[in-house]
């Protein structure tokens, strides 16, 4: 009798919790809810805090929460408060199970590996379910903002296509509308005052004019998207509605403004660590918690030892096990030197190769850890030989591989030369420049515990894999203890 009870009671209990979690955490489009001004959501490392700085938000009819296109999706599908205003792969797998794959987040257009695959099959959505990756179809060749043609410095071929989309006669590179499909994680629609700040008229990394906000002609920071293709929150919202939501008619200006106003007042960060306890504490580090993000000024350089990227953690040194480990991790991030090598748009912009520095050299923007300068960098996550994928001859990887061949008159990629194999050419698909192949705009470090996996291609399943990648990539020679501390540090941001 006892055995019978245990066998059936445990799954029932888990199912009840699971349903409860779904009800609490996943916001469906078109719902009628009030988002509180301050909210918390549990995750594997503690709790994420989400602040609506303008006060409670009524989702009824709100364009961020209302489908504006034809596939039933709204912005909230991919930007869920519980998951750091992004989505985790685990949450997507839960949605698949809960809805039998019918949730609009799995829309054929970009929620599957390719629209021409059988949409009822789980394997047709493997990149989204396993790695949290949405398909990003990019017109090839790229064009300027005014629609004029753009000089492209390289040719692109598809050398491996496990999804079939890049060689599809309808959606592929040789289709009537030539398109390159890459697969990327959605970025958090929160803490955005930091992401859009720091604009310079001339981009330090390129020596070229920054893109302009079409609304006012002012330069933009170019740190919003992984390839910096959209200059502003307004253009991003428009593009997302016409693309991800498959709208047939453009949203109204009022709808766009409402979306942007909402996005600009959402702040999120981890507020509690399972073992270290509450992170927002007057005697603790000043940069932790969502309220700190709400209250601090944007556009401040944090690569310094007096007012660093995420504040000073000195007060936690010598404390209990976890706070002390987190403080050591912060110290490693700020002070642990290593040879930064062969990273295009870091070593190649006048800093020298190699550069003996620290994590904070590149992840220098206060509060987010992005680069304050327009931050696309080829750190090596998508380009051979440092990519996080298996070799081209291994068929088990899910991602396409492209062969990029630079024109003889173009400047080559500074560390990979004129022939490059890449799972995502990144910024180069927008700029058309060879030096940009594999360069991805850095993303913010906040709310990481809520939104695994990591990197733009979802290749790091957890924070330990992020740390391991950097350890391998830059031969940092991190000890096990240092890795442990770094993971704990990243987990409280």
């Amino acid at each position, binding site marked *: 009798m006892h055995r019978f009870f245990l066998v059936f009671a445990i799954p029932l209990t888990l199912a009840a919790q699971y349903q409860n979690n779904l009800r609490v955490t996943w916001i469906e489009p078109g719902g009628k809810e009030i988002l509180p001004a301050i909210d918390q959501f549990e995750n594997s490392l503690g709790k994420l805090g989400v602040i609506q700085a303008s006060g409670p938000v009524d989702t009824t009819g709100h364009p961020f929460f209302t489908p504006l296109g034809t596939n039933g999706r709204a912005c909230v599908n991919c930007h869920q408060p519980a998951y750091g205003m992004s989505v985790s792969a685990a949450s997507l797998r839960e949605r698949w199970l809960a809805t039998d794959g019918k949730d609009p987040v799995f829309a054929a257009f970009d929620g599957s590996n390719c629209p021409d695959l059988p949409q009822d099959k789980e394997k047709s959505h493997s990149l989204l379910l396993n790695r949290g990756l949405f398909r990003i179809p990019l017109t090839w060749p790229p064009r300027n903002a005014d629609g004029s043609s753009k000089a492209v410095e390289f040719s692109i071929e598809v050398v491996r296509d496990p999804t079939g989309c890049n060689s599809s006669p309808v959606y592929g590179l040789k289709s009537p509308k030539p398109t390159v499909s890459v697969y990327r994680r959605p970025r958090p629609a929160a803490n955005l005052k930091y992401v859009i700040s720091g604009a310079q008229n001339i981009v330090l990394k390129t*020596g070229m004019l920054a893109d302009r906000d079409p609304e006012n002609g002012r330069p933009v920071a170019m740190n919003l998207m992984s390839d910096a293709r959209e200059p502003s929150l307004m253009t991003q919202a428009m593009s997302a509605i016409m693309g991800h939501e498959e709208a047939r008619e453009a949203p109204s200006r009022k709808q766009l403004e409402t979306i942007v106003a909402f996005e600009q007042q959402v702040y999120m960060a981890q507020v509690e660590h399972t073992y270290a306890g509450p992170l927002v504490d007057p005697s603790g580090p000043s940069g932790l918690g969502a309220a700190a993000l709400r209250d601090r000024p944007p556009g401040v350089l944090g690569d*310094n030892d007096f007012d660093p990227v995420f504040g000073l953690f000195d007060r936690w040194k010598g404390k209990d096990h976890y706070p002390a480990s987190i403080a050591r991790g912060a110290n490693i991030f700020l002070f642990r*030197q290593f040879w930064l090598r062969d990273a295009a748009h870091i070593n190649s*912009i*006048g800093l020298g*190769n190699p550069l003996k520095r620290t994590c904070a050299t590149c992840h220098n923007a206060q509060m987010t850890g992005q680069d304050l300068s327009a931050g696309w960098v080829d750190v090596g996550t998508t380009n051979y030989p440092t990519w996080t994928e298996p070799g081209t001859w291994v068929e088990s990887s899910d991602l396409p591989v492209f062969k990029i061949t630079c024109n003889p008159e173009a400047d080559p990629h500074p560390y990979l030369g004129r022939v490059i194999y890449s799972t995502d050419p990144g910024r180069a698909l927008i700029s058309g420049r060879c030096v940009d192949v594999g360069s991805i705009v850095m993303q913010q470090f906040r709310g990481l515990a809520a939104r695994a996996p990591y990197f733009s291609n979802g290749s790091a399943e957890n924070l330990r894999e992020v740390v391991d990648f950097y350890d391998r990539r830059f031969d940092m020679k991190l000890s096990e203890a240092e890795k442990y501390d770094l993971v704990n540090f990243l987990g409280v941001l």
Partner: protein
Amino acid sequence: MRIACFLWLLAAPITVGQQRSFVACPIVRDTKTVPCFLAEYQGELYYLGIQQDITAAFHPPQLKHEVLVEGRVSEGPRVCGGIPLTPLSISVVKEINPACNTILPAEPGIDAPQAPRGAGPASYRLAEPPPAPDSLTGPQEFTVLYAFNDDFVDFAAIATVRRAAGYAVKIGASAVKVTGYRATTLLSNGEHLVEKAGLAEKRAQDIATLLRGSSVTGVSADWRKDPEPGDGKTDPTRRRVAITVIP
């Protein structure tokens, strides 16, 4: 190393003021603080500079690439084991050379010169480059310098463009003339290196675009098709764009 010493014995003595223009792999020497960058020519080691911030005048070379070194032997002791060159210009050769991959470990007794910033985070706030001085009046020429065969507008060049743009806007310039040049470098071995065709135009057009994008009106771009000659002494000063601001 023995061969290098032998060559050094055979080579003519190095004198202060002697010009050195050569292409070689850079060598990185680690130190207790920041790394030094060196290059070897005819068996002798020359000191190029140390790792600094992006705002510094010296931008280090890059492993995986050869470097064109153009400098004059200066007085004073060796630095990081190398003979110092002042003034000095270095240009990273664009094509990859995997053989350029030498990092020497730190050695006792070999220290990098004192640097404002070490290898960790900064201990000071980075200063913005100063604008054009208020005392400027009348027609002014601003010169943007380039590395060899390069059109990259680096930090110093951006600062020059900003100064020129600021001055042009302030005085309401009637015209701003941009003239691009490409040049020749005479190497110490007598060989001539000529910058690629089309570079003068590219440099001029790029700077004109930056000025127009900085609210400057009346900008015109021109360029010299033929390369400037090389004399093995002042060659880096001729790889340039001249911005002439006319009231």
